[in-house]
């Protein structure tokens, strides 16, 4: 897989499968062995050809890797200095605390960190497209979306330090808990969107009462799970106002996206009967414009929509992963040239919309955020043991209460050695 496939230059044509001709899906003959006809391609060659065609699909792009802006006819976006500087600041701050998360794990302060490095454009673009009334369902890498939903980065630490499973209120923040079981949240999002339809908060077109939409975040690997297939079936059946936002970062741990699909992922939307769009996931403006369009479609009752943000996981899968075992450094270097932050910086400089003071200011703000993030992490204390028993049910239950009481009484016997019960022995 080449890093630059389709990402090179800005393109004017939207690749929306809803509009594609009906014969667009070609079929290979995987597994049929050698070609029966001399000179005809073997099944493997057919598949290779399909993949080559796939990677030539041009994503929607507004800002090229060189920092050149070209408006897009289908996804208009009013771009001014405030917007650009805001998006730049978002991305820099998110990247900075993400790097701090990695460092904290290396220093033993977190048991794991899930880096978003490289996906800042895909996340800040989508995150800033959300309106306050929209609902978002993240997987586990969506630190940039969390940021846009107003979740303080320190709120993310508990999951990775092991002090909680989730700390924010999903309803108040309109940001569901991080979901680790691949694909689960996408069905949940489809159901939430069904609720929005039942509640009549879709397609009202009343400026007094803004319509709502739901967005579900998942990866390229996740698209193979039955849950996601079922989510798309349900959303299609009920015209649900849900944006399926797939961050295709090319890898599912060690498996390249080719293991998951013979067609570009956004093409799948067509099979479910709704539009699919591939967007340059390293172009924050394109991600913003396309996601805004997709959410608008959903809010006005034209959902669902699939958006494939074509991006790259620049770091390891998690801090437990060793990507040198399965991918080459060349690949990463090619994608470095497509960095989502750098192209905005270049554009800001070139167009004179930001000066050095601005960049220095953002850098200083990022360092301060990282310092606060770190301090907060170091100060986090483990929860008390009775946390194990809390909120298992919505109200107390006698049997569990008894289990808790007996256990706490047992622990009290170790009062002289408060940590005695906390050791995993042997």
């Amino acid at each position, binding site marked *: 897989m080449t890093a630059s496939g389709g990402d090179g230059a800005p393109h004017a044509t939207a690749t929306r499968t809803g509009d594609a001709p009906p014969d667009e899906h070609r079929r290979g003959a995987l597994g049929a062995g050698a070609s029966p006809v001399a000179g005809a391609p073997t099944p493997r060659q057919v598949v290779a050809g399909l993949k080559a065609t796939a990677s030539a699909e041009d994503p929607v792009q507004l800002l090229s890797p060189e920092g050149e802006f070209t408006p897009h006819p289908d996804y208009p976006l009013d771009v001014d200095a405030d917007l650009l500087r805001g998006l730049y600041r978002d991305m820099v701050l998110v990247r900075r605390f993400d790097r701090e998360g990695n460092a904290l794990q290396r220093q033993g302060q977190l048991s794991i960190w899930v880096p978003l490095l490289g996906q800042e454009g895909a996340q800040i673009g989508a995150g800033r497209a959300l309106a306050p009334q929209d609902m978002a369902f993240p997987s*586990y890498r969506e630190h940039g979306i969390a940021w846009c939903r107003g979740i303080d980065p320190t709120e993310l630490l508990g999951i990775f330090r092991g002090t909680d499973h989730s700390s924010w209120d999903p309803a108040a923040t309109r940001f569901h808990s991080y979901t680790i079981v691949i694909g689960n949240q996408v069905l949940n999002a489809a159901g939430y969107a069904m609720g929005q339809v039942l509640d009549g908060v879709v397609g009202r077109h009343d400026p007094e009462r803004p319509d709502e939409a739901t967005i579900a975040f998942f990866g390229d690997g996740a698209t193979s799970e039955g849950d996601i297939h079922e989510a798309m079936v349900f959303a299609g059946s009920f015209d649900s106002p849900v944006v399926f936002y797939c961050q295709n970062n090319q890898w599912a741990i060690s498996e390249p996206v080719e293991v998951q699909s013979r067609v570009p992922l956004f093409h799948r939307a067509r099979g479910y009967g709704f539009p699919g769009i591939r967007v340059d996931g390293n172009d924050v403006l394109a991600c913003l414009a396309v996601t805004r369009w997709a959410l608008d479609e959903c809010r006005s009752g034209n959902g669902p929509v699939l958006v494939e943000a074509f991006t790259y996981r620049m770091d390891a899968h998690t801090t437990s992963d060793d990507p040198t075992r399965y991918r080459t450094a060349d690949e990463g270097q090619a994608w470095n040239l497509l960095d989502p932050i750098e192209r905005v910086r270049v554009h800001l400089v070139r167009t004179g919309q930001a000066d050095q003071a601005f960049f220095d200011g953002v850098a200083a703000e990022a360092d301060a955020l990282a310092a606060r993030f770190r301090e907060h992490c170091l100060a986090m204390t483990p929860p008390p043991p009775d*946390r194990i028993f809390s909120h298992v049910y919505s109200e107390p239950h006698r049997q569990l209460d008894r289990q808790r009481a007996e256990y706490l009484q047992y622990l009290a016997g170790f009062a002289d050695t408060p940590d005695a019960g906390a050791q995993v022995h*042997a």
Partner: protein
Amino acid sequence: MTALDDARTAAVLPDDAPSQARPTTLAKALNMGLRAAMEADPKVLLMGEDVGKLGGVFRITDSLQKDFGEHRVIDTPLAESGIVGTAVGLALRGYRPVAEIQFDGFVFPAFDQIVSQVAKVTYRTQGRARMPLVIRIPFGGGIGAVEHHAESPESLFCHVAGLRVVACSSAADAYWMIQEAIACDDPVIFFEPKRRYWEKAPLDARPAARPAGSTFTSVVRRAGSDVTVASYGPSLPVLEAAADAAAAEGRSLEVIDLRALSPLDLDPVVESVRRTGRLVVVSEAPLESSITADIAARVTEEAFYSLSAPVLRVAGFDTPYPPSKVEGYYLPDLDRVLDAVDRAINW
């Protein structure tokens, strides 16, 4: 000694173990066992997420794709129902698939296939079709992981007739049990104690050292006379430590490794309880409706008049697995096992 007795003691190496017994991690032993099975039978396939080039997130399948090829060590799409469902089809076609589920908490998308097909094909077809497939699941807590990476779902599978459910606890058992699981014509849910993957124990991998009988049996790890303590997988070292600590206080614990969780091999447990009169069963899984309850009920029934105390259980609590910073409180540890031993003795 009968062949079965032989099998039950084979994993216990004498202090003067022959030089062929090498200190081996449990992870490496599984890797060696998989390799041996693949060499012995070309129909053995490995499949799962990241099992190929990466060698699995725990490296259990390390180097196997390199040595056996992409057709025998298959990186599958990210879909557990897909992995198990296609493994069923491959088994129907004469293969012996070994499916890896990456973590305990991720087996549930496959649960339908496991309950509805894997477990029932033999019964439904009156033995005309067989399900020689193995589903490997790293399980248990204690590794400081995020949610869904530390669960003990074994009882969910034990409740399903037609599945064999086993758990290994040592390098030697890992090596021989995985081979027996692969050779078995029934589906085997093979639980691996992930927090013990990197612990070393002697492994004699010579064919001559192959256990004479089945390894899907309960085995006495350490003889004792006061209280029987039984468990499986990750808690075995906790029991061994408890036996050491109890010995220092003049109490003699008999340690049993259940190994087979379904069908259970309870005869050795009952026989032991007839001598000790006391039984403590240990498991990381929640207490309610767990196999520990099954063991307690059945031992009570079979050895009622030998019991000097009720069968006691030390387990996780009836809660979801907690955040890892409190898992030390959740997991049965040395102190909780000894506390139960005391209670059994002082009953």
